[in-house]
């Protein structure tokens, strides 16, 4: 059994991957933020360096990069590269 996690993409990550969202499969018992980021790096090595400086947002809230959080398929997940508004 695995979770299908839809991940929203923005800015350089969106541009490099050429789409504004991707779906990642994670085993239900491994459905956490750390594992999601590791899987993203495995599948898309071309965004590894951006992921190093990006944060995850879950349900429109930043997740601290040193915290491993459980993720459900119903969560709204997004990769937030360093922001540059203003």
């Amino acid at each position, binding site marked *: 059994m695995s979770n299908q996690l839809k991940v929203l993409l*923005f800015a350089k990550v969106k541009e490099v991957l050429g789409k504004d969202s991707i779906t990642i499969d994670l085993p239900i018992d491994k459905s956490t933020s750390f594992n999601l980021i590791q899987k993203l790096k495995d599948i898309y090595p071309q965004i590894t360096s951006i992921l190093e400086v990006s944060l995850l947002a879950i349900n429109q809230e930043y997740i601290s990069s040193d915290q491993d959080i459980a993720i459900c398929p119903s969560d709204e997940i997004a990769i937030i590269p*360093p922001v*540059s508004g203003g």
Partner: protein
Amino acid sequence: MTDESRIKIEVNENIIDLNYWYKIVSDDSSGATSSFLGTTRNEFKGKGVERLEYETYKPMAIKEIEKICKTILNGFEGDIKKIGVVHRIGNVPVGESSILIVISSGHRKSSLEAVHYAIDTIKSTVPIWKKEFYTDGSENQWKGNCESCHFNNNNHPH
């Protein structure tokens, strides 16, 4: 007045209308209105800039700006009256503006400091990104504000 009725936030593609936003924050008990307007400059480190292109994760951007506004209303000695923040998205050519923050207060110190706090914090936390397009045709660049380096290391990509 509730916090909500004292805060007005917009993130959209429209040209920013100065008078509209000053009217939004006007208040008979306010003696001071401070503001910050961010504009596309014609150069970056000596390179000619033609325009900026802004993108956003809009619902989260609005949430993050709301947090900043609420922090401001609760601080600054309770002297803040109203806050208006608008961020333009899409193409912003040289000389046009991408952000306006306008804050009214009883006395000057609080809104002057609140505007400074607002722009510093918006630049570090709100999910909005810009891409710089150059006049010499060289490859456009996604920017990252130094304030937004989420990780305390030096290998950020900007």
